[in-house]
């Protein structure tokens, strides 16, 4: 029998994964110099696409793939508007988020009453049986395991490959990349599109992995939290992992405390994950600013 603490950690890893995918995606985009506040919208689109395809075909896995593509479409629109049309980054992200709310609410109406076969919970052999750590880390749906690998892959790709170097250089000095014979604009659009696809998978984890249902505006600000996580993790993939789990644990604590009959109003508990994120943002803001990609610092510090 698990106690409340273990319950919160286990559920925190599962819930943190919802944030981890979009946060890694946002990290990729921001390393290339583009902020995507539309991450929230990408998640929402991914969540609905995954649920709709999952409910229609009966395969949650096809749903996850659909979630990736739905997120990418929104991300591509953002990349095009910002890079090619020179739109304001923050405004473009918010407009696309609003668009996503409207579109998913309308299309999603029919799926509210439908059910989906969620992603299966797979216990990893051997590791899953390790006492204490096993249930917390190795008894989840496969997307959670995929996210462990993804953190490593993103780290490796950013710091150990040529493509990663070009991406990081684009975020710092696009002019230099251009002089070196690369196309910074294409790098940025590709990075934002890929990152938004990951946000779509985060949405899929939410709708077909975590809550197993669809309702209007179900992402509830998680995409904005993902952006905050990237900021306070100062664009480092490994730290993003812990930041995402911090949010996941805060999210889980609310329901665990409630289940254990703690006499605190449910809605006050609901605000806990946002407060934790805000506190982390404030606590680490100063240390993070010096690490900001140079091109990004511009976009974040002075926009209309």
């Amino acid at each position, binding site marked *: 029998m698990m106690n409340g603490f273990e319950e919160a950690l286990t559920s925190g890893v599962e819930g943190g994964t919802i944030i981890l995918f979009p946060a890694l995606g946002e990290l990729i985009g921001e390393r290339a*110099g583009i902020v995507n*506040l539309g991450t929230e919208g990408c998640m929402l689109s991914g969540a609905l696409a995954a649920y709709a395809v999952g409910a229609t075909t009966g395969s949650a896995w096809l749903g996850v793939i659909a979630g990736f593509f739905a997120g990418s479409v929104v991300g591509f629109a953002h990349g095009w*508007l*910002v*890079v090619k*049309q*020179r*739109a*304001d*980054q*923050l*405004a*473009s992200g*918010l*407009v*696309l988020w*609003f*668009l996503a*709310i*409207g*579109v998913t*609410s*309308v299309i*999603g109406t029919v799926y509210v009453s439908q059910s989906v076969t969620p992603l299966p919970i797979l216990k990893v052999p051997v590791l899953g049986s390790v006492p204490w750590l096993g249930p917390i880390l190795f008894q989840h749906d496969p997307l959670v395991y995929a996210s462990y690998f993804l953190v490593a892959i993103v780290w490796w790709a950013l710091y150990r490959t040529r493509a990663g170097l070009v991406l990081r250089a684009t975020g710092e*000095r*696009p*002019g230099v990349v251009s002089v070196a014979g690369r196309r910074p*604009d294409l790098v940025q659009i590709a990075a934002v599109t890929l990152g938004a696809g990951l946000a779509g998978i985060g949405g899929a984890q939410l709708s077909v992995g975590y809550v197993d249902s669809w309702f*209007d*505006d179900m992402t509830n*600000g998680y995409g*904005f939290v993902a*952006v*905050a996580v990237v*900021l306070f993790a100062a664009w480092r993939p490994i730290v993003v992992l812990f930041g995402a789990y911090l949010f996941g644990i805060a999210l889980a604590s609310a329901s665990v405390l409630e289940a254990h009959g703690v006499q605190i*109003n*449910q*809605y*006050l508990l*609901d*605000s806990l994950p*946002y*407060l934790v*994120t*805000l506190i982390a*943002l*404030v606590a680490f*803001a*100063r240390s993070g*600013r*010096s690490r900001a990609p140079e*091109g990004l*610092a*511009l*976009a*974040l*510090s*002075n*926009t*209309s």
Partner: protein
Amino acid sequence: MTLTQEPAAAKIEVGGAPGDPTISNGNPFDRLTRALGDAAGWKRLGVAVGVYIVCLGLFGAFVASQKANPFGVYQSLLDSSIFSTGSVPAVLVRAVPIALAALAVSIPARAGLVNVGGEGQLIIGAVAATGVGVALGQHVPGPLGWVAMALAAIACGAVWAGVAGLLRVTVGANEAVTTLLMNFVANDIMLYLLYQPWKDPTGGGQPESRPLTSNEVLPKIFGSSVNLGVIVALVVAIGVYVVLKRSGWGFALRVVGGNQEAARRAGLPVKTLKVSAMLAGGGLAGLGGMLYLAGTQLQLLPGGTLDYGYIAFLAAFLGRHDPLKVVLAALLFSAIAVGAPGLQLNYGFDGNVVDVLLALIVCAPLVLSGYRRKAF
């Protein structure tokens, strides 16, 4: 010293921040004549009009894909806003919170700050007004009650935004993200109050506050169904316009927003100015929350703000942070938002369908961002 590097980076033409659209040269008519002085100008105008038409067409295509007649949908939107005399007042009273929350975006934008917290500031304003209004009840005469409610709402809205401003200038926490997150906290605070301490015991178990007494409700003007809030909002908007254009404070904000380093070297108190812009913005949004509560809603309800705070952000962007244009944009968006129930009733759409149209309308200036700077 990342700040000193910003001007150098500003020349790089890849996905960076655009130029400051708030600084215009000449009146709109002059600029239009100048822009249309040659064939290229006409072409740009054509492109601009074309983009708006495409965006409206995309909404038509979207509703058509949901098996609704796009012309019918647009007809329904027009019928429920400007074509029926009954709904014009509805458009006006709903434009009040949108316009004030949009000004709450525009004032900080002058100082180069992004306030996406209009929703939270509206909610906190409405919460503060409810607290004061319900406590006062019938004990004080109307005008005194309104002033007390408004002051409480302005103070709380200002604090809610001011915190984000303060965090920006002290620790450097990005204000767009903090204001967004604080929206969710504000909503949870409101829900907590409505589900527990403020729940109306006579409300049949619904999470509602006690309704305001007739003393607290804003009066209607000239026997119409438009309340006093509309006049207040209009006066405030004109006031903001004058202050931003004519006062030293308004000028200082523009300098800070235009070039922070120059402002600092000129001896302007940059940090104080930034926080003051957030305080002023938050106060206006708080007032918007109070006017909507005391004029239209009459009791605090969950989800009562109907995302007006976010719609306001879009309106501020569409109005390019010029107070008078922002008010016009708020009226337009209010007219569209008022059409939502009609679309729900006639076409079975989710009420959020209007968000698609609002977002697409704002997509047009986003698409045109590059063109505009060439044109004017």
